[in-house]
């Protein structure tokens, strides 16, 4: 049995040295706030190999130079990089208990307030929108909640991500059946058009509510440009950050939220011992964080 298949070039032809890995790890942290643990060396080597070949680099030192010195290094390439080391796995209507609370609690409150005051406005920020499933899901929930009344409301969903690639996918709004695996059946024909076998296009009235754009949560100036929001969704993003970066990002969310604004984070993300700028409130199956 022992023919050492591993001799076939386990991670492609370009090896990363420990030194190069540490350098790359620091650069990624400085640029994006994403912290790579020490045992990610082979993962990086494996996932980056095709990218290095594409750019025709012979070793990681050249790639590190490119990241640091090339005009595209800190912008486009950084997006590529984060895409390689984080997951974009998501689906429509992911984490239903949380979305139920969003609809029945936060959104209901906003709609009631808007109806009473006459200021019919809802602004949501989807920070870390990946390929668009989250902001589109929120837009669909808004349609479902407001129905024909939606015409009378000013709605803006700002959807940002660090990766240009995933943003392109989000803007295209075309998905496979797999992305819809957690979507209630009645929603699909209402808001999607089946273009091909198992290929679905999101309908324009949903898309209209959203503006997509690139953002690096580690850059204060780009975060400050986001219009103040009633609600922020930032799910499965801060899990990649260390404590310092988490505090920074949560501080930025606090600044961005309007008074009494709500923050939604991923199920396994908690603000406990990170910031006291939000008041947690428990619901069945989820927590909402309220701006203090």
């Amino acid at each position, binding site marked *: *049995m022992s*023919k050492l298949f*591993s001799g*076939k070039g386990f991670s492609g032809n370009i090896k990363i040295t420990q030194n190069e890995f540490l350098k790359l790890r620091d650069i990624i942290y400085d640029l994006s706030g994403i912290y790579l643990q020490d045992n990610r060396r*082979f993962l990086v080597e*494996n996932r980056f190999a095709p990218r290095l070949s594409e750019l025709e680099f012979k070793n990681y030192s050249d790639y590190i130079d490119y990241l640091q010195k090339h005009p595209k290094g800190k912008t486009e390439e950084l997006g590529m990089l984060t895409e390689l080391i*984080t997951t974009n796995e998501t689906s429509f209507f*992911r984490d239903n208990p949380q979305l139920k609370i969003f609809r029945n609690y936060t959104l209901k409150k906003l709609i009631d307030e808007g109806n009473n005051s006459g200021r019919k406005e809802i602004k949501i920020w989807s920070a870390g929108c990946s390929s668009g499933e989250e902001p589109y899901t929120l837009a669909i929930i808004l349609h479902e909640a407001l129905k024909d009344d939606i015409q009378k409301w000013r709605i803006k969903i700002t959807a940002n991500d660090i990766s240009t690639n995933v943003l392109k996918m989000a803007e295209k709004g075309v998905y496979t059946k797999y992305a819809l695996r957690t979507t209630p059946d009645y929603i699909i024909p209402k808001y999607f058009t089946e273009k091909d076998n198992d290929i679905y296009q999101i309908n324009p009235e949903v898309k209209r509510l959203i503006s997509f754009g690139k953002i690096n949560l580690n850059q204060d100036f780009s975060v400050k440009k986001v219009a103040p929001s009633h609600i922020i969704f930032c799910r499965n993003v801060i899990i990649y950050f260390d404590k310092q970066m988490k505090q920074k990002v949560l501080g930025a969310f606090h600044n961005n939220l309007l008074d009494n604004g709500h923050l939604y984070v991923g199920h*396994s993300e908690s603000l*406990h011992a990170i910031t006291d700028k939000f008041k947690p409130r428990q619901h069945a199956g989820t927590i909402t964080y309220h701006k203090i």
Partner: protein
Amino acid sequence: MQKVSIDDVQPGMVLATDLLQGGRMLLPAGSVLTNKNLSVFKNQGVESLMVTASDAAEPDEESIDKAFIYARDYFMFINHDDPVVMQLFDVAVYKTATKIMEGWRLPTPDEQHLTALDEMRDLFFRDEGTIEDIVDAELKVASFPDIFFKVKQAVEDQKSSAEQVAEVVGLDVGLSTQLLKLVNSPLYGFPSEINNLVRAVALIGGKELCTLALGLSTIGYFKDIPPELIDMRSFWMHSLTCGVFSKVIAEKVEGVNPEMMFTAGLLHDVGRLILFKKMPYSAVQTMLFARENFIPLVEAEDMTLGFNHEAVARCMLEKWNFPPLLTEIISSHHAPGKSTRQKEAGILQVADNLALAVGIAEGGMYVLPGVDEEIWEILGIDAEFLSDVVKKYDYQIKELFNNFFS
């Protein structure tokens, strides 16, 4: 799959289709054939059997390439420069390639993902409770079977005679049957059948037999975990594989008790089961996170829960008053270097990684967490030994599994 005359069928071959006679099921597909089966079939006039192509041709280039790419993702967190570790990779590729040759279709990325359930409630939200809260809540609602305490007492009592030990274990008929199946398995290789517990005690030792009984009786405690949360069959298959590998490796390492290691292997992931009982939503989210990011489960637990199954196991086993040595080994299998029982915890870590490597070809979902570098030296085992272990024991594990869990 191939048709083999009953005279040519060897014990250890796997039945490919259900064996029926006059509409009556003699043995279901997937069963590992034993000598006993074969003599029964011969008596009943069975002439031939359909068996899986276990001795199929060596995997070809194409299936090796496919298996190579598939298995590679599981090995992202281990040291690629270590020849022993890379032997694990070779084992995984070879086994996967063989399965592909037999017609196994590799799971697509979609199939490898899990779907979360909506209606699960955890004991608490992240950071709002402790491991101890989890364990206390568990202890409040469920109690261990009596036999467990009796066996435990016998383990701890140095003076128990063979008869006394046999008597205690014999109180539970199911347990006795399982124990006898275990000591009669090729894992022990006794030349003649051991048909009673007193003899088993004489051959293996009273304390050793009790340690095995402790492991087997713990399995029963976790029967009620909802099947939609986790595939318990694969869970116990991995655990049993880890137990067998732990025992076999322990036999090569001086000063380590193989029976203790079997039980440690069998129970090494009990912390995960407690999490499934008390934190089901988070436990599923953790599996999702580990899968989606292709990171070791233990790391995903630390990220999503803030603690891991090792720490849960330690707390639980301490409260159960488990033998302290077993508790220490089980709760150190991801960081044996830091344990007071480096050798034992190291064996468990190697066995766990080996079991995961072998499990890839069975549709296993989790990447190998890796082996602490110093462990190889401490244990003094090499690459060749590991692949021998797999070669020798793979079939036996399936047979043992069918004995215990079917």
